[in-house]
């Protein structure tokens, strides 16, 4: 099957006063239609920037996409101009953001903002758009949807605003929905509601979802595949089970180890990853994780490991020593 989205060697740079920030460094992967992909990493790992680069929403200057291709349904998005891109955004790819407080415009009603999005990409009358907006709010589980179309964003709670954002994102039935930390600003009980909603919607509508987050727990509940990013590169990717159960990259191992779990025995010390992520202004030549890695060898400091497929497992890892590490771990 032909993939829905294929990213090849994407590279994004920011040119700032202090120098060149290497935000995304050669990211390549593909997504099938209907797939839920989790993109996981800590702040500054390039997970959001790579998504914004796909959409050509990087502020330029200082940002610049220096290399790569983003193929969506047979067209390279990076070759499109701004007008063509505007048609793609919202219609083919929709995006929802972290902060539902600032991503809705406070001076317009919710209904108006959703129907705006509809009118932009569809040939329909204002009346139809408004009716559809009502249906969408209903779909995302806002009680009394029809009556709440004329509400302003401040009359909605945080969770409801995020639902409204999702309704807006879904308004044109996109093939791909990019959710950039959509639940980070929400409380756990509200987060559970949103995750539940997104799962249901995906069952019903069948769009592909890219879920960008720092929370390994959320991804475990939601995604089928995972990309783990570190310092602008994908360092491990694969099916969710094999990432969590047969973790290969020392960074992913450390990340999972530093999470306390509701089911571990009390008193166990958390495994923490020492040190800090590298400064993107001065990335080392070798593996970006080498400075914090307990398994590093000479080669790690000089050569950046490529992402290599582990035979027949749909699981790839960028580490020179993954085979050794698997050996050490099983002991």
């Amino acid at each position, binding site marked *: 099957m032909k993939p829905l989205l294929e990213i090849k060697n994407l590279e994004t740079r920011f040119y700032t006063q*202090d120098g060149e920030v290497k935000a995304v460094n050669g990211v390549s992967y593909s997504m099938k239609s209907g797939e839920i992909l989790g993109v996981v990493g800590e702040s500054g790992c390039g997970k959001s920037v790579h998504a914004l680069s796909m959409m050509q929403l990087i502020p330029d200057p200082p940002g610049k996409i220096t290399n790569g291709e983003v193929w969506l349904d047979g067209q390279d998005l990076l070759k499109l101009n701004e007008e063509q891109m505007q048609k793609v955004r919202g219609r083919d790819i929709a995006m929802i953001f972290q902060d539902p407080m600032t991503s809705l415009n406070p001076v317009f009603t919710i209904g108006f903002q959703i129907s705006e999005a509809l009118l932009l990409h569809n040939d329909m009358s204002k009346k139809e758009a408004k009716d559809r907006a009502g249906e969408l709010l209903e779909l995302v589980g806002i009680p009394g949807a029809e009556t709440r179309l004329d509400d302003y964003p401040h009359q909605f709670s945080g969770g409801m605003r995020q639902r409204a954002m999702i309704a807006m994102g879904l308004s044109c039935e996109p093939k791909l929905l990019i959710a950039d930390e959509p639940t980070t600003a929400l409380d756990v009980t509200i987060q559970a509601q949103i995750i539940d909603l997104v799962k249901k919607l995906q069952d019903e509508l069948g769009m592909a979802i890219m879920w960008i987050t720092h929370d390994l727990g959320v991804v475990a509940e939601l995604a089928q595949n995972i990309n783990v990013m570190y310092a602008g590169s994908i360092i491990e990717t694969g099916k969710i089970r094999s990432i969590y159960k047969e973790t290969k990259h020392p960074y992913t*191992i450390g990340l999972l180890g530093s999470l306390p779990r509701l089911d571990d025995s009390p008193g166990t010390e958390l495994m923490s990853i*020492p*040190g800090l992520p590298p*400064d993107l*202004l001065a990335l080392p030549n070798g593996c970006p994780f080498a400075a*914090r890695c*307990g398994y590093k060898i000479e080669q790690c400091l000089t050569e950046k490991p490529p992402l290599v497929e582990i035979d027949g497992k749909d699981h790839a890892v960028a580490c020179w020593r993954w085979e050794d590490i698997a050996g050490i*771990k099983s002991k």
Partner: protein
Amino acid sequence: MAKISPEEIIVTDFAVREHRSLWGDAWGRLISSNTARLGMFIVILFVSSATFSHYFWKYEPKKDLDYSLKLKAPNLSPNEEVDSIHIFGTDKLGRDIFRRVVHGGWNSLRVGIVAVSISLFFGGLIGLVSGFFETVTMTMVERLVLFSITGLLLGALSAWVANQIFQLFLYAGMGIAAGYYQDFLKGKTLRSIVFGVIGFLVSGIPAFFAGITVGLVCGILGLLSGVILSRPLDGKFLSNSLMRLMDMILSFPGYLLAIAIVAFLGPGLGKGMIAIGVVGIPVYARLTRSAVLSVIHKEYILAAQSVGEAHGRIIFRHITPNILSPIIVQTTMGLANAILSAAALGFLGLGAIPPEPEWGAMLGDSYRYLASGAWWAVLFPGLAIMLSVLGFNLLGDGLRDALDPKLRT
């Protein structure tokens, strides 16, 4: 997994970037901007020419008079008509305009600095106090100071009516008592009545000796003051009162108020400075207050409180350094404004007393001769005003960008 303790690594592996203070950073940004450099150049030129000419190139305006050179056009070399060089020409009394423009700079600079200092000092203090106590609970000592000052202010009227200065102190004492016994009959109407009666007696009895009517008037004033002082005055009250006072000053058009103050005090450069300074107070008060309010909710203020730092220390060590940026910008721009106001007052004949060289006054003296073709007598003082104002404004803009990188595009 070979466990490396996080501590070892963190000790060795961080802070790759160069060590720079925030101020150093801002300086770097300032001098990298072309407009800010231009502004800085003009300001330095203006300040140094004004200062050096005052000390090294003396000028006595009272003796400078030469009717034979009246209204001569600029010349760069001596000619048959004029045997001296006047690159900016001469004015109606035959004075060299270049010399007067340079020395006028000294006056403008003085006005600017003194007026802005007045506005900055009082405005800053008012803004700092009202912003701080708007959110932070007062300590006992601070509350007593607030009550006694309120008492003093309230007492001023009856002290004036009864012509008894000591009434001021009676009122202040009453304020202190009300502040100290704050929990006495708290929240009850009886408290207002008790303090009203005390006020009536305290102010009425001594005033009674000055006359029955006076005694009655003072008694009523005392009663009202007692009722006011019986209320739980706090930081919010202080902040509100100060800000309403600032609103009152702001409700007058600036120039009009300055002219009114000068008319009241009499003309002269010194009085002009005071007038311009007073008009500027509310601007600085509001700016400072809003800056304080934006800082005071930061957790480091709470942290300072939680280690037990006293209010004065919090204000001077934690708040002041963090609100300096907008104030520095406003001060720089305010200098331009003060120079302009001084010129306006001078133009109207309310600033410097002739023959003292002052740009606005020079314009005012010479614009009548424009019709007879003496453009130079107006052009050069005008240019001087424009350039100095432009210089301070450019520098202010540059400082704003440098000190607050978030505003940069």
